[in-house]
C-alpha cells in the first residue's frame, strides 16, 4: 500500500491498472481525459499488460467495449459530457446485451452554451439505460469504486455495465492523498474475470440480440434488465462489506453523515457533498441539528436505505446539480418518489438547484439552505424550488448582454 497525491483522473487510471483490465477501447480526442493518456503511457512503458485501441468516436468506443466484454475479457473505457451523449445510442444497446464492463464518466455541463465545468446533466442522460451508476465524492473513492464496479458488473446476479462518475475539475484535475492498494490484495478481492457462460471463439460463432422482436419478448428482456439492476442493491452491499474487510474503507450505497440525531438533512450527489459535510460540521458547532445523505448508487436507486435514514426527519434540503427542463431537480423527484406515502417520511422536502456548470456553492449558501428548510418545517410547507443565484451574478450576465445588445442595435442600423 502506498499513500500519495493523485488527481481523480490518476486515481481512475490506477483503479484500471490494479483491476487487471485486458482491453481499453478509447476515443483519444477532446472531451477524452487524462485517464486514457495515463493508461496508454503505462502500456507503452510495459508496466501494464493490456491492449488499447483508439477509435474514431465514443459511439464506436462503447460498441468495442461491449463487444469485447461479450467475448469474456475484462474491458474498460472512459468518456466525458458531450462524448457520453455522442455514445448514447450504444450506451442503451450494450446494456441490453447484458455485458459486464466498467466506464468512467467525468461529468461536465452540456452544451449549449458550452462550459468545461461540472454538473450532472450528462450522466443523468444515461440514467434509464441499464448501466448501473456509482457517484464519487473523493479521488480515493474513484479508485476504490472502479474495483468494486468490476465485481458488481461481473456478478452473475447482475451482469450489467457500470459507470463510475466523478466531477470534472473538482475531482478530475484535483490532487488529494490517495491510498493505492497492493496489487496482491486487489487480486484477492477482484480475481481475474471468470466469464462462466460468456464465451466467444472464432471456431464457434454466436449471435448477440440480433432479432427484431414483438412487444411481449421485448418486454421480457427489458424487464429482466430492470430486475438485474435491482439485484445490484444487495450485491453492492455484499461487495462493499468484502471491500471494507480487505481495505478498511466502507462504501455503503448511501453515505449518511451525522444523520442519526439530525432533524434536517442535506441530500446531494458527487464531490460537492464534501462541501456539504463541512457545512454540517459548522452548523453542528452552531447548535443546529443537521446531517447529510449522499446517494452513492444512483442506479439502482437505493430506496430502502434512503427511507430508513430519512424516517422521522423533520425536513430535507435536496440540492440538485442538474436541471430537468420543465420539471426541476432530478434528485428531488427521485427522492419524492422514494418517500411518498411511506410511514415516517419527512413532511417537508425543499428543492434547491445549484452548482450548474460548476458554479460554486459557498458555505454561507449551505447555512442559508438549512435556515430556509428549518423555516419550511415551521410553516409546514415547502417553498418553491430555489435556484442558487445572486444579484452580483446577474449583473455579470447583464454586462455580457449589454455587449450583445449594442451589437444588435448596430446590426439594425446597417440593414
Amino acid at each position: 500500500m502506498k499513500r500519495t497525491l493523485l488527481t481523480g483522473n490518476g486515481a481512475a487510471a490506477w483503479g484500471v491498472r490494479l483491476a487487471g483490465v485486458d482491453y481499453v477501447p478509447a476515443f483519444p480526442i477532446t472531451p477524452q481525459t487524462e485517464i486514457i493518456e495515463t493508461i496508454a503511457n503505462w502500456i507503452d512503458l510495459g508496466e501494464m499488460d493490456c491492449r488499447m485501441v483508439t477509435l474514431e468516436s465514443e459511439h464506436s468506443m462503447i460498441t468495442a467495449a461491449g463487444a469485447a466484454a461479450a467475448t469474456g475479457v475484462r474491458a474498460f473505457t472512459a468518456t466525458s459530457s458531450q462524448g457520453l451523449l455522442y455514445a448514447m445510442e450504444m450506451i442503451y444497446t450494450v446494456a441490453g446485451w447484458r455485458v459486464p464492463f466498467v466506464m468512467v464518466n467525468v461529468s461536465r455541463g452540456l452544451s449549449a452554451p458550452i462550459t468545461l465545468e461540472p454538473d450532472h446533466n450528462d450522466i443523468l442522460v444515461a440514467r434509464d439505460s441499464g448501466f448501473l451508476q456509482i457517484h464519487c465524492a473523493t479521488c480515493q473513492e474513484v479508485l476504490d469504486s472502479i474495483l468494486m464496479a468490476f465485481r458488481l458488473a461481473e456478478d452473475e446476479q447482475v451482469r450489467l455495465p457500470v459507470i463510475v462518475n466523478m466531477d470534472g475539475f473538482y475531482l478530475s484535475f484535483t490532487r488529494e492523498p490517495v491510498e493505492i492498494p497492493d496489487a496482491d490484495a486487489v487480486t484477492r478481492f477482484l480475481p481475474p474475470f471468470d466469464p462462466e457462460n460468456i464465451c466467444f471463439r472464432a471456431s464457434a460463432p454466436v449471435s448477440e440480440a440480433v432479432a427484431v422482436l414483438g412487444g411481449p419478448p421485448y418486454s421480457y428482456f427489458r424487464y429482466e434488465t430492470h430486475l438485474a439492476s435491482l439485484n445490484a442493491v444487495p450485491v453492492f452491499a455484499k461487495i462493499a462489506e468484502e471491500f471494507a474487510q480487505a481495505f478498511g474503507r466502507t462504501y455503503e450505497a448511501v453515505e449518511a453523515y451525522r444523520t442519526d440525531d439530525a432533524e434536517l438533512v442535506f441530500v446531494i450527489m458527487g464531490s460537492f457533498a464534501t462541501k456539504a459535510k463541512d457545512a454540517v460540521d459548522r452548523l453542528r458547532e452552531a447548535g443546529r441539528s443537521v446531517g447529510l445523505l449522499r446517494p452513492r448508487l444512483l442506479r439502482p436507486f437505493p430506496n430502502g436505505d434512503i427511507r430508513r435514514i430519512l424516517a422521522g426527519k423533520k425536513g430535507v434540503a435536496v440540492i440538485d446539480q442538474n436541471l430537468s427542463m420543465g420539471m426541476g431537480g432530478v434528485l428531488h423527484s427521485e427522492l419524492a418518489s422514494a418517500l411518498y406515502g411511506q410511514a415516517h417520511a419527512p413532511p417537508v422536502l425543499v428543492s434547491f438547484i445549484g452548482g450548474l456548470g460548476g458554479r460554486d456553492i459557498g458555505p454561507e449558501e449551505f447555512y442559508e439552505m438549512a435556515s430556509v428548510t428549518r423555516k419550511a418545517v415551521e410553516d409546514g410547507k415547502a417553498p418553491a424550488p430555489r435556484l442558487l443565484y445572486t444579484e452580483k451574478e446577474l449583473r455579470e450576465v447583464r454586462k455580457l448582454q449589454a455587449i450583445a445588445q449594442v451589437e444588435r442595435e448596430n446590426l439594425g442600423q446597417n440593414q
Partner: protein
Amino acid sequence: MYRIRFHGRGGQGMKTASRILGRAFFLEGFEVQDAPRYGAERRGAPMFAYVRASRNTINERGIIRRPDLVVVADDTLVPVSAAGVLQGVTEHTVMLINSNEKPEVWKDRLNISGQVLTMPSVAEKEDRLEPRFISASCAGVAARLVGVISRTSLKQAISAELAHLGAAVVDKNLAGALESYDLMGSHSGSVTPGHEVPAYAYQNPEWIELPFEDARVSAPAIHATATSEKMKTGLWRTMRPVIDYSRCNRCWWVCSTFCPDSAISLDDEGYPQIDYEHCKGCMVCVAQCPSHAIHAIPEQEAEAGTPAGERL
C-alpha cells in the same frame, strides 16, 4: 487550514508551482488538495492554481475565496480584472508579487492593508524567448512563507514533481527555488492559516428570483459581426513583437499572412502595423520576418515605456 492561490498565465507553470507546494506540505504530514483552474486552455491567458493544506481531512473544495497567501507570477495580471488576483484579499492575506517594482509601490497602488512582498530578483536570461521557469521559485518562496516546510521537503517535492523533465531541469529549478527559499528566511511564518466561515454568523447570500426573459435576450446568441474585437486578447501577451521600421522592407505579406490572429495590417504607405489590443504574443511574425525586422521584448519592459512599436 492553509489556503494558497497562485496566479499566472497559461504556460508559466503555476499548476506545477501548486503541485510542488502541495507535495512539500504532504511530505510534512499535511492533508493536501492542489488543483489548477482555467477555461479553454490558452497559452498566455490568465489562470490560477491553488493549494489547501491542513492537519485534518479537507472537505472544502473548489476555488479559494479567502486566501492566506496570493502568489502572482506575472505582475501585468494584477490590473486585469478577469484574472481575479485580488479576489477575497483581506488584511490577513499576504501578497507575493513577481515584479521589478518595490513592495511599497504595490501596497500603495493596490491600497491594501495586508503584507506585500516581491519575489527575490532572478538573473535575466540571455535568450529572451527562452521560457523562464519561475514555478519552482514561486513554490520555494511560498514554502518559506508558511514556515512549516523544511528545505529537505521542498527539495524532495521539486525532484518528485519535475522528475519527468530530466535531471538537468530538476537541478536548474532546485537551484532557483532553494536560493529563493533561503533569501526569504526573515519572512518565515508570515503566512498563517485562516479560519472557516462560522454558521452562527454568516453573510446571507441574498439569492434573487431569476425573471423570465424573452428569447431575444435570454438565448445565448450574438447576432452581429466583430464582437471578438471586444475581447482584448492582447492581455494574454508575455512577449511583445516590435517592428524596427528601419529594417522593414515593406514586403507587406509575410508577417501579416503568417499572423494567426490577423493582428497585423498595412498602413497607407505599405508598412505593417501591429494591433496590440489583439496580438497574443505568439512570436510567429518574429520567426517569419525575412529581414529580421521584428524583435521580441518582454511585455513588462514594453509596458515600462521602452519602444512600443511606433514608426520613427
